[in-house]
């Protein structure tokens, strides 16, 4: 089961890399003509094509690109001629740091709120939570971010509104500067994670063994914590990992608002400069992480569920 899923995941990553690679082939003309513009002479275009390796057939270029990526050689940026691996590497670390920070706040918070909502379902608490989460799911990320900036950095002056980081900043300084971006991301994902936790637990509460337990007269809290939760872990782990995957991608807008030097901002900048190799490489990194996280959610679901682990 697990092995099958891993093979599928690998195939998926290859398919995605193929799509990202081939989509560039959709360009009318090719990359060299696109960069040099209409005024370029055929000789310059041909020379530039050779420099970029565009004179090779597509399948060879694809193999070179893919193996280059695996060995940490992502080519060079068109905008500033620097190696892409250098650009992407440092920024990807920053993105991971921000996403992890947000996850550390969001996961425990969402689980607690979700269990409470399941416990007091149909009550006033549940109704309020429902409305609040629906609202926060519907709000654009930059709205949440600017409201937080308005209050916490402009009105009260507690936290910085710009999360620029250098190498000289230590861990504590980083955590302090990244508080607002991390809280923004938390607010964006908590609603979703909490709703899914609530649904997973309520789903379980409908099963006969829980009814049996409640007929025996066991207290509600005990039923949830000792009877429902152990079986709810699989769906909950799934929820957490899916949301982590969402976090990694959701950072793009938040990084932009807080001018945080992460991979998302690099990608947005490169899109406006039409720096295709950088967009392609960062797209591949994002998609790869996203697929790997979703894959581990599937594997975790199989491992925590005996029925899936030992199929008939």
């Amino acid at each position, binding site marked *: 089961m697990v092995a099958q899923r891993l093979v599928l995941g690998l195939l*998926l990553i290859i*398919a*995605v890399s193929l*799509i*990202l690679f081939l*989509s*560039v082939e*959709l*360009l009318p003309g090719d990359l060299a003509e696109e960069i040099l513009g209409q005024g370029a002479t055929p000789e310059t275009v041909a020379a530039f094509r050779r420099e970029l390796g565009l004179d090779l057939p597509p399948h060879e270029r694809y193999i070179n690109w893919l193996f280059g990526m695996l060995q940490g050689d992502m080519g060079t940026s068109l905008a500033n001629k620097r190696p892409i691996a250098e650009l992407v590497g440092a920024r990807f670390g920053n993105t991971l740091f921000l996403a992890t920070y947000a996850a550390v706040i969001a996961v425990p918070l969402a689980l607690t709120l979700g269990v409470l909502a399941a416990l007091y*379902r*149909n009550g006033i608490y549940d109704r309020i939570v429902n*409305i609040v989460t*629906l*609202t926060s*799911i*519907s*709000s*654009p*990320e*930059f*709205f949440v971010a*600017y*409201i937080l*900036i*308005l209050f916490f950095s*402009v*009105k009260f002056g507690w936290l910085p*509104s710009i999360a620029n980081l250098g190498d000289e900043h230590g861990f504590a300084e980083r955590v302090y500067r990244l508080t607002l971006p991390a809280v923004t991301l938390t607010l964006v994902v908590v609603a979703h994670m909490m709703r899914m936790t609530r*649904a997973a637990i*309520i789903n379980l*509460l*409908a099963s006969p063994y829980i009814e049996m337990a409640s007929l025996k007269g066991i207290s509600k809290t005990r039923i949830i914590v000792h009877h429902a939760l152990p079986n709810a872990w699989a769906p909950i782990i799934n929820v957490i990992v899916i949301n982590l*995957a969402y976090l990694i*991608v959701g950072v*793009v*807008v938040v990084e*932009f*608002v807080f001018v945080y030097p992460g991979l998302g901002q690099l*990608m*947005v900048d*490169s*899109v*406006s400069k*039409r*720096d*295709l190799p950088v*967009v*392609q490489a960062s*797209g591949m990194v*994002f*998609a790869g992480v*996203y*697929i790997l996280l*979703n894959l581990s959610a599937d594997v975790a679901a199989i491992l925590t569920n005996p029925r899936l682990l030992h199929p008939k």
Partner: protein
Amino acid sequence: MQRVFKSLAEAPLTAKFGVTVVLVYTAVALLAPVLAPYGETEIVGDSYEVWGGTYVLGTDNLGRDMLTRLIYGARNTIGIAFLTTTLCFLLGSVTGFLAATVGGWVDQVLSRVVDVLMSIPSLIFALVLLTIFGLSIINMVLVIAVLDATRVYRLSRAVAQGIVVMDYVEAARLRGEGLWWIMRREVLPNAMPPLVAEFGLRFVFVFLFISALSFLGLGIQPPTADWGSMVRDNATLITYGDITPLLPAAAIALLTVGVNFVVDWFLHKTSGLRDEH
């Protein structure tokens, strides 16, 4: 019509709120030239003028009237999002119904393609595609419509699969009706309720997607008035404690919340489903 009013009167408060929001936004979008005090791209004063006086909500970074831009923004942003959602539904539901009705290798090929497309996060994929095709409204509409059609495909295929095994579809096939006829006259009417709800949710998603892209400067391009780029252009005001840039952002949030409330109510009404047992 009377039935609609009756069920609306019995609807919960959140649904009434949602319906009101949607109606007001639609009216503003349609009547934009009548309601707006100035022209959409007209420069009327200095940049960043304060509220009150001649300019009710002040002016933006180029000295254009904020209220006017907000009103035209309703027309542009909602119009483009609506167009995108409609395209996305046409594409997604036709392919979804086709996969379910024909089955076999058509279904296999379409479904595997959709699987792969869905495994790439859509914002990232959209950024890559927009770099390749260039930034323009038409490209953005097409890219988002195609990427989002994958989700509509999944839903309409799943719904249609339950319908195509029914006796009346079998009867239509035996009668010699064509594929298009079966999809339009047998499958579509029965798949309507879930698709309508999905249309609302998709619209919210597409609307937020377009706003995010415009906010990043990669969506709707100036001088077209649009809520996402208005936030970006005036964002510096926040650091002076001025809430003007929050207005377009709030306009986005209010509409999406409203649509979500309406969809929530519609789902309860049509399915009779509650998540409690």
